[in-house]
């Protein structure tokens, strides 16, 4: 996942050109936060290339300018050219990777030909290995380090007012702290967790895909069937929440924009889900090995065979993998929410030894797997940094 921000110069000052895509709030938030971090690093400014309405947020500590007139046209052209060049590079990389891959396959056909002299076959083998290394050389890593520092983005008062009116129309008022809940977990578990949150004094807004079998009740506003659902609604909901409980990576990334604590539940991939900021928590699903019917350990979820299987299912569209998943139980989720609340109250100053040990394990596993898995290279540690967030304590304690 790469940022769409383009770095240029205006006179002597570095300028980061950005065209936020409001229809993709998660992508937009990652772009903005990484651009702000980069601008702070270089002492530059962010220049927004907006087609429609003005930006609904502001960034503290970084000058944000909106280009107009001829300047806008020029900067737009620069931005488009830079992105086109980036796309071209990516395309070329793909073509080169494909050619290298096919080249390797052709070489392999000859390597096994015992009519060829041994030395030549050895040479062909080393050429094939070389092309293999070239294929797996480049990936776009998720910019974890750029997202690390708490962002200084805040929503504009006009936007807050406008969206608040929308939410009030749906029954969400200011009286109680809000929790945004997004999950397709078993309805009975979701129900118990939502009841717990309501009992603890929260108002809950449920978003995400509509879920057949879900029953709404007092204190919970179901926005899943709201149509049309403007993307800004999710953005506001997240930023107005005391914390979010989510299952999708998009929502977790949206929370980075306004530093909202996030609890990611039922994660299957410890690298993708690992929270970047200290106010992030995650829980992992229980993975079951479908050959042995045994639940695998969290340590096993950091191994190459596990990722190979996950990759086959998610990327190559295999209908069946070697692993099944059990959602987190009600008790586990309530434990996680309790830990989240304690973390918010304590300012995320402490973590258990098992949690920091798990982080080290993830970094080590990521470094080892990045060489063989493009997926881990993309989502794993960014230059040795996986995140300041943590795995929930009860699961971290289970990791030997």
């Amino acid at each position, binding site marked *: 996942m790469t940022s769409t921000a383009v770095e240029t110069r205006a006179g002597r000052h570095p300028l980061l050109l950005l065209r936020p895509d409001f229809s993709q709030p998660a992508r937009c938030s990652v772009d903005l936060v990484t651009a702000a971090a980069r601008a702070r690093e270089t002492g530059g400014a962010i220049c927004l290339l907006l087609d429609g309405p003005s930006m609904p947020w502001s960034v503290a500590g970084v000058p944000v300018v909106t280009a107009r007139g001829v300047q806008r046209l020029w900067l737009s052209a620069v931005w488009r050219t830079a992105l086109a060049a980036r796309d071209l590079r990516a395309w070329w990389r793909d073509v080169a990777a*494909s050619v290298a891959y*096919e080249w390797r*396959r*052709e070489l*392999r*056909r*000859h*390597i*096994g*030909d*015992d*009519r*060829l*002299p041994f*030395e*030549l076959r050895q040479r*062909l083998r080393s050429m094939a290995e070389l092309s293999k290394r070239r294929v797996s050389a480049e990936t776009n890593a998720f910019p974890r380090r750029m997202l690390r520092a708490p962002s200084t983005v805040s929503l504009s008062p006009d936007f807050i007012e406008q969206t608040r009116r929308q939410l009030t129309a749906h029954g969400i008022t200011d009286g109680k702290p809000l929790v945004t809940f997004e999950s*397709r977990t*078993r*309805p*009975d578990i979701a*129900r118990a967790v939502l009841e717990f949150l309501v009992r603890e004094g929260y108002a809950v807004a449920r978003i995400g895909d509509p*879920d*057949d*079998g879900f*029953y709404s009740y007092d204190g919970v506003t179901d926005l899943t069937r709201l149509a049309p659902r403007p993307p800004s609604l999710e953005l506001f909901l997240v930023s107005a929440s005391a914390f979010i409980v989510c299952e999708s990576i998009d929502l977790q990334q949206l929370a980075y924009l306004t530093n909202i604590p996030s609890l990611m539940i039922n994660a299957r991939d410890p690298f993708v889900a690992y929270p970047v900021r200290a106010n992030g928590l995650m829980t992992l699903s229980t993975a*079951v090995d*479908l*050959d042995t*019917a045994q639940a695998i350990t969290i340590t096993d979820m950091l191994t190459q065979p596990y990722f190979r299987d996950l990759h086959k299912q998610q990327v190559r569209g295999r*209908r*069946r993998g070697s692993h*099944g*998943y*059990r959602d987190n*139980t009600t008790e586990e989720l309530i434990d996680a929410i309790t830990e989240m609340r304690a973390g918010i109250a304590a300012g995320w100053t402490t973590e258990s030894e098992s949690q920091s040990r798990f982080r080290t394990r993830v970094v080590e596993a990521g470094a080892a797997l990045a060489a063989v898995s493009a997926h881990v290279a993309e989502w794993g540690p960014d230059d040795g940094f996986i995140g300041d967030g943590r795995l929930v304590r009860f699961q971290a304690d289970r990791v030997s």
Partner: protein
Amino acid sequence: MSRILFVMLHPGFIRYYEDAIHLLAASGHEVNLAFEISRDKLGEDMTAQRLAASSPNIHCEPAPERTESVRDFIIRSDRTATRAGDQRRQRSDHEAWESLATTVRLIEDYLRFFEPEFRDASTLRGRVEKRLPRVYTQVLGVAGRPQATRRIIRAALRGVEAIIPTADGIDNFLRERNPDLLLVTPLIELGSQQVDYIKSARKLGIRSALCVASWDNLTSKGLIRVLPDHVLVWNEAQAQEATTLHGVPPDCITVTGAQTFDRWFAMRPSRSREDFCRTVGLDPGRPFLLYTGSSVFIAPDEVPFAERWLTALRHSGIPRVSEVGALIRPHPANSRQWYAFDSAAFANAAVWPPVGTDPNSHGFKEDFFDSVYYSAGVVGINTSAQIEASILGRPIFTVRSPEFAHGQEGTLHFRYLAGDGGVVRAATSLAEHVQHLASELEGDAAGNERNREFVRRFVRPHGLDRPATPIFARAVDALRQLAPPAARPDSLWVRTARMPGRSLAAAALALAEGRPVWVYVMRQPMTLAIHTVALGYRLTDQWQAHGRPVIKRMRRVAWRWWYESSQWLGHRWHRSKKKLLRMTRGARGTARRFVGLR
């Protein structure tokens, strides 16, 4: 005694015809079963052994081995599957023809799913697409859409199919067995090679028939590419499918009923309800619903749905529904995923038989029967267990869920269950489904009548009291008694067209690898370059082995010659020098004497 040769894809198809085969054998026919592939996923090979042991008139054997199976074809187009030394393998002419045959048949199957009746069947189309190399799907994805081009391509494919020669192995096999009747099932597998049996039978003048094994065979798989002499189907709906979708003339179709379900009419429970409930772990005091799992194509990820279903039941607020027991019966070929299901999380729910139970184990069928017999209703996504439930008169339910749309609305056979005259009450949401359960668990006379009508139409079209197995056996016997058709050897134009067809076959064999076009363009120059370099290596080797020692020897000889000659020359020179010296000295003395210096 007459000979019937029954060619099956694998021994798993025995279960559809077991009773009919027994009946034919008991009537004095010699039944030879030939299996194209052996399969032991669900203990099918054991079933074949058991069947062969049951009667001296039944013989089971493997069909002749093929140069290239459909599986080989698919593996070759797998992007990661090129093996070292692949080019060293000698590729026979025959392999190329088989590759062409598989390609042509897969393309025909692919085009089929562009027809208007399959507009919702994108997953079925995707299933063929995965098997075809990309080079074809890229072209056909565009060219296959208009009806006119589809017709042209199909006509061309039929022409190509005609010139593909029959396999010598199959011809010989049929000649040796010399059957009075050749039965083939299922024939309609994607890219099926069983077509070659029909072609060989036509060539040799052997009467052939396709036995349609299951209810979805004619709609969710491939085409009958070369028509056999007869087609045996379950019911009028399948007869209609055979005519409209596969172009089988109506007078070649025989409706026999679904012989595979006959035993469901005769079976009785193997134990009492209390015993059964105690065995499976349900409360005997309450009625239970049977959830029947579907195949992997229909429901690859069924567990989350089943969990939502159970939760909907438990939280329905209707005592009759919320307290009902739930028995989950995984599909035998899709059971592994149920390891992730935690039945303990739900009261009065159980999975039975336990995941991984061998379908050939003692009591497996009885368990299934008891599960349906004692259930208050049967729920499933889209599975033949719903037909079995209709035979026992149980209310049957389904829920149309977006995640299974490809396996419900996306298949034609689902309409027999849930369409007009169907036997399944289909809900659009779990809430509606709960209402259906609440109303029908009470007992529904209209539902019973609906079941009976469905069974009469779909399972026993000759009458509810007339088992299909004897009708099937009689139909087979009647076909056997018909005079054999005239042998149809290859015509002159077919034999002539085979000459250029060879290039087509070679191209199909190469393209089956599914590589980018530039690879084929580059392959020959690359091979040439590698072999040129290899020649260099060989020359170096030859030089090292032979040239160098010769040079060395020659050098040594030269050196010796030079040495010896130089020695000789030196010696001569020395001697000459001495002689010269002597002569000089002599001359000097003579001169001195001459000049009188002394």
